[in-house]
């Protein structure tokens, strides 16, 4: 999951990915990689890829600050769906 998200961010949200070595714990909001519009793009991608509806994302910075945080959020959402 991490590599899929990193590849997407590198390809679609960062114009020149080779200029930035994106890691799982790279701060996405503070570094400016994620802004308002790129966050929406990412959420639409996550909805298509992992079936997490955009509306169901809890929009707090902690959930999007790193790739690790995004993956943790998706996993917890998936786990809650399974338990339901």
């Amino acid at each position, binding site marked *: 999951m991490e590599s899929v998200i990193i590849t997407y961010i590198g390809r679609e949200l960062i114009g020149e990915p080779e200029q930035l070595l994106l890691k799982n714990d790279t701060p996405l909001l503070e570094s400016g990689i994620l802004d308002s519009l790129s966050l929406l793009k990412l959420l639409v991608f996550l909805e298509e890829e992992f079936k997490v509806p955009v509306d169901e*994302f809890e929009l707090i910075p902690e959930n999007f600050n790193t790739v690790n945080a995004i993956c943790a959020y998706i996993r917890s959402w998936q786990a809650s769906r399974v338990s339901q």
Partner: protein
Amino acid sequence: LSIHHLVKSVTKFLDLRHAHLYLIALMRPLIAFLPAPLAYGVACLRGDWRYRLDTYAREGIMCALTDVLGDQLNPAERARVTRNYFRLRSCEAVDMVRLAGRGRALARLVEIRGLEHIEAALAAGKGAILCSAHFGSFDSCFSLIGAHGFPITVIGRWPYKFGRPIERFFFQLLIRKPVEHHRHRPNIQPRGQFDTAVQAAAILRQNELIGICLDPPVLAADRRRAVPMDFLNGQALLLPGAIMIAQLTGTPVMMTFMRREADWRHQVLEISPPMPLDGDTVTAFRCCLAVVEAAIRQDPSYWSLWYPLSNLVKLGLLPEKTIKAHDKFEAITDKWSEWE
């Protein structure tokens, strides 16, 4: 506490240098609800008065028209456009007050064309984005659509810095309250939050309307992602965010403009069919911006961003040095010009 201190404190609080403006602000509701021919007649007189007496603003607008539009207007046309600029701003102030209550006082003066495009978009279930510009009564235009029962939320920043508490009071009472009253939610005000676009997308997914202007001067924090676009003989720095949201959510985009009839009180609000959004975001944005530019070129007086000149500098249409010749006026009226 002496009388002298009391008078000094009250004077400081009210900033009596602007006493005549407070008086005008207080009279506005009274004037606005006069019979329409009289209300808009007074507004035009007020516009003519500002045209004659507000020398700095008049010269500033004429300078902006010359520098930006080049020889599109001859001197007589420039003078007419400038006079109409002041008239329109005064009439727009009346429009806003007439939105009070159910907004019928304004609604009965406005013919809406193209509502069927909104109805078709909502029937398709993906909401719609209504794009406009700082053109004519754009704020009242969005509110009127709300008053017709369509759930609309506007993306746009309200001024938030006021020199005196009383200015904030008048602004809230005479502009923000009547305008937002007809909208489904308070404005989404983009000031660098990370979730603005997601909020807009969530609203569209609820099959509602978003209203937005395509031409706001870009904040310093957003300059990095602004795109230079051909606009009014220059390169304007603008954000194509509305179009990107439309493309990501599959929402149709319609252009909306409100224009006045020759009698100044009747208006026509036109809603276009959905704009083509094929291709990349910048191409689609260019297409929508071309409609805005055509509307401005057809009658430049409708575009309120001619003044203060700082708007044009922020857009990138005028160099910084142009503003220095007019900075005295800017300092006095910048905060007033939007709602006076």
